[in-house]
């Protein structure tokens, strides 16, 4: 039987690929989605993920904690053939980096371990994300021209604004238009599709204390965070499964048990439901082939299906257009394996993450965290300003999850048991008194694009015989100074709370350390100059006219906004460009 002819092949069924697939398929284009994972996306699978997270992840044999982003996904067969980085940034008892998939290049004086991981699933890492969806602010697109550091984007806020609107309606973003319209210059041409996530009881108490505090002439406002987490039952279009409003499971990372939080499985399903898209799962793409004669068009996509009888046999698929939507590690890896799209020598370079840290405290009164979403509000006031000439902007969040990653309730209980020998009523009452007062203020910084921070191909192979990503990562003073400033602001805010026990603020002294926000960006930068960029403003590669890239890999800079909404907006923009190229109109 002849291979079906497709208009578009999309590699990767995460949020960027899924949105492209849906947009193109709903406009009548024939789409093939190649996805390395193969799990279903329905309720039974969601329930099983929860069971695995609760049971398997608690068990010593997996050695992955229950809250880890990969913990619900440990039972998937795809882990063998489409491995994800796990226990990223962790070291063993002897101080050696634990290498599960990543191969760390730790040479050089400023080198650090890259700590951001992801999951490979139908739906991508949106299964395991927090769901925060702030937009970038206008100056994020012109960092170089405004502040003389980093780079400018080849597009402006104005260019992206309509696509932000579309992305917010596709994902189902809950937000407060009054709080966000015009914030730091970021106007909104259309309201959010639904009202904001209610602030938690505790967040309201915190907001009451912090609002109006002045730091460095900046008046602090605690705002509700826009989140792709529903406040009403919602489906963006007919043909979608209706997701229900958030029930506050306090488990957004690593899994929403109710589907109130957006995951891209919904757009994959809707794309397939149009009858115009095929999802070919369990297919790990190994190479893109191009024709000769100077055209440099991608003619075929080679892949191996690990569910097939001969899992090592290569298969091929062809289409007029190929869209790479893996992620900012897998996309450059595939391009490097194919030796394509890299005339600029930028593929794999300028890898970025948001480096974050937090200050934790005990509020004077109970806040009752662990009820509702893990975070409902934020402080956006340091995301822009003249200080960006000297150190990076930072975005602050108020946690609704106690001390967050620094200290879980289980850690607290173990501390009281093991170190304080507390049992019985003494233990119970101390836990009842202390944990409801736990709070954190986190801050997430910008990392400038650095060509040394890069993904290359390791000599070490994964279990399917493909090169593992080798990662070199450095952090400079622009970011460390912001981490220090973020710490100072968070500490000042916490100490401004009347009657707070200052000696119980654990992180009073700043330490040169950071954690990952797991926001992997860069590696296939967008720009106007083919000599220094991989893709143009449509996401089209300069070297291959029918090859496009979507996802966070095209970001020229990281700014401070959680990246998914921007990736979604850019993906919709690219899908529209592809549609125009193929001759068609979208919905």
């Amino acid at each position, binding site marked *: 039987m002849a291979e079906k002819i497709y208009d578009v092949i999309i590699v990767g069924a995460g949020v960027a690929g899924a949105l492209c697939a849906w947009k193109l398929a709903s406009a009548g284009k024939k789409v093939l989605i190649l996805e390395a994972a193969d799990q279903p996306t329905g309720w039974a699978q969601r329930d099983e993920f*929860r069971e695995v*997270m*609760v*049971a*398997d992840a*608690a*068990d*010593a044999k997996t*050695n992955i904690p229950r809250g880890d982003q990969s913990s619900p996904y440990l039972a998937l067969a795809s882990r063998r053939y489409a491995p994800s980085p796990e226990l990223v940034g962790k070291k063993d*008892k002897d101080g050696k980096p634990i290498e599960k998939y990543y191969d760390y290049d730790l040479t050089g004086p400023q080198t650090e371990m890259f700590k951001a991981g992801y999951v490979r699933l139908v739906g991508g890492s949106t299964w395991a994300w927090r769901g925060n969806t702030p937009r970038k602010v206008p100056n994020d697109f012109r960092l170089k021209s405004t502040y003389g550091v980093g780079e400018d984007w080849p597009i402006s806020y104005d260019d992206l604004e309509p696509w932000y609107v579309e992305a917010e309606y596709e994902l189902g973003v809950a937000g407060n238009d009054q709080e966000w319209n015009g914030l730091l210059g970021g106007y909104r041409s259309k309201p959010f599709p639904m009202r904001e996530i*209610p*602030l*938690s*009881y505790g967040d*309201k108490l915190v907001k009451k204390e912090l609002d109006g505090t002045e730091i460095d002439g900046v008046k602090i406002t605690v705002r509700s965070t826009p989140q792709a987490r529903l*406040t009403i039952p919602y489906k963006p279009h007919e043909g979608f499964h209706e997701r229900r*409003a*958030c*029930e*506050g*499971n*306090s*488990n957004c990372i690593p*899994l929403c*048990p*109710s589907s109130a939080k957006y995951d891209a499985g919904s757009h994959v399903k809707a794309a397939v439901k149009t009858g115009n898209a095929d999802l070919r799962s369990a297919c790990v793409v190994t190479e893109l082939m191009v024709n000769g004669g100077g055209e440099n068009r991608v003619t075929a996509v080679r892949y191996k299906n690990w569910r097939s009888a001969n899992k090592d046999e290569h298969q091929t698929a062809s289409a007029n257009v190929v869209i790479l939507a893996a992620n900012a590690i897998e996309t450059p890896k595939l391009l490097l394996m194919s030796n394509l799209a890299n005339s600029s020598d930028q593929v794999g370079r300028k890898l970025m993450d948001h480096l974050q840290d937090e200050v934790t405290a005990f509020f004077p009164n*109970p806040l*009752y*965290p*662990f*009820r*509702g*979403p893990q975070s*409902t509000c934020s402080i956006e006031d340091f995301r822009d300003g003249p200080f960006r000439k000297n150190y990076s902007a930072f975005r602050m969040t108020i946690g*609704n999850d106690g001390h967050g990653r620094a200290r879980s*309730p*289980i850690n607290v*209980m*173990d501390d009281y*048991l*093991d170190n304080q*020998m507390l*049992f*019985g*009523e*003494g*233990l*119970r*009452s101390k*836990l*009842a008194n202390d*944990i*409801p007062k736990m709070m954190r203020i986190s801050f997430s910084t910008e990392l400038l694009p650095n060509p040394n921070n890069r993904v290359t191909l390791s000599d070490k192979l994964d279990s399917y015989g493909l090169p593992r990503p080798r990662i070199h990562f450095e952090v400079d003073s622009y970011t460390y100074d912001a981490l220090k400033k973020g710490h100072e602001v968070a500490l000042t805010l916490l100490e401004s709370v009347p009657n707070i026990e200052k000696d119980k603020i654990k992180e009073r002294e700043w330490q040169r350390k950071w954690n990952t926000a797991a926001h992997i960006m860069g590696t296939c930068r967008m720009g106007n100059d083919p000599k220094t960029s991989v893709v143009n403003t449509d996401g089209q590669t300069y070297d291959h006219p029918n090859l496009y890239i979507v996802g966070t890999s095209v970001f020229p800079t990281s700014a401070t906004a959680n990246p998914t909404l921007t990736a979604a907006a850019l993906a919709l923009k690219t899908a529209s460009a592809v549609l125009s190229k193929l001759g068609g109109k979208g919905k």
Partner: protein
Amino acid sequence: MLGTQVLLRNSFISRLPEINVAEKLDNQLSNDLINANNEEIFLQLSQLLTGVDKLDHNIAKEYYHEYLQQKFGIYLDELIGIYQRVVAAQQKPLDQKKVLDEVLARIKNDPQVLHVAKQVVRIWYISQFRESSDPSINTEVYAGHWKEGMLWDVIKAHAPAYSDKPHGYWADPPKGV
């Protein structure tokens, strides 16, 4: 309330590794009774160690037989035996704080029994426990009742991933606060 005879028997069994044939036969004949009583004693001991009054009988049976007894055997028996002796020696009505202090005083220098006492707390609070007392190795075992873990009740929350509450409930304080 426990009978003195059973208290003594359990104490005796747990402390003497070798018992005569008649005693063994007696044990078998009254196995059900002893088990039932051990479950009850385990439940009371659990309430003492956790500080939580209302623990579930069925879960207690499961934790006792399927997990703790299997993993900790003689050390759990030893802990129960100590508890029984402390209870027997205390004036009635019992002062639970005194009982707890006395139990802790007797086990604090016995790392194995102390470890089991901590795991009794952990299994009730989070439905998992550590087999080994060496903190440098991960020996966590899941015991099947994450949702029913008492820690969440104590801090007036719910087990993460198991809300069972309507949208927006988090905007208000917990009931009864």
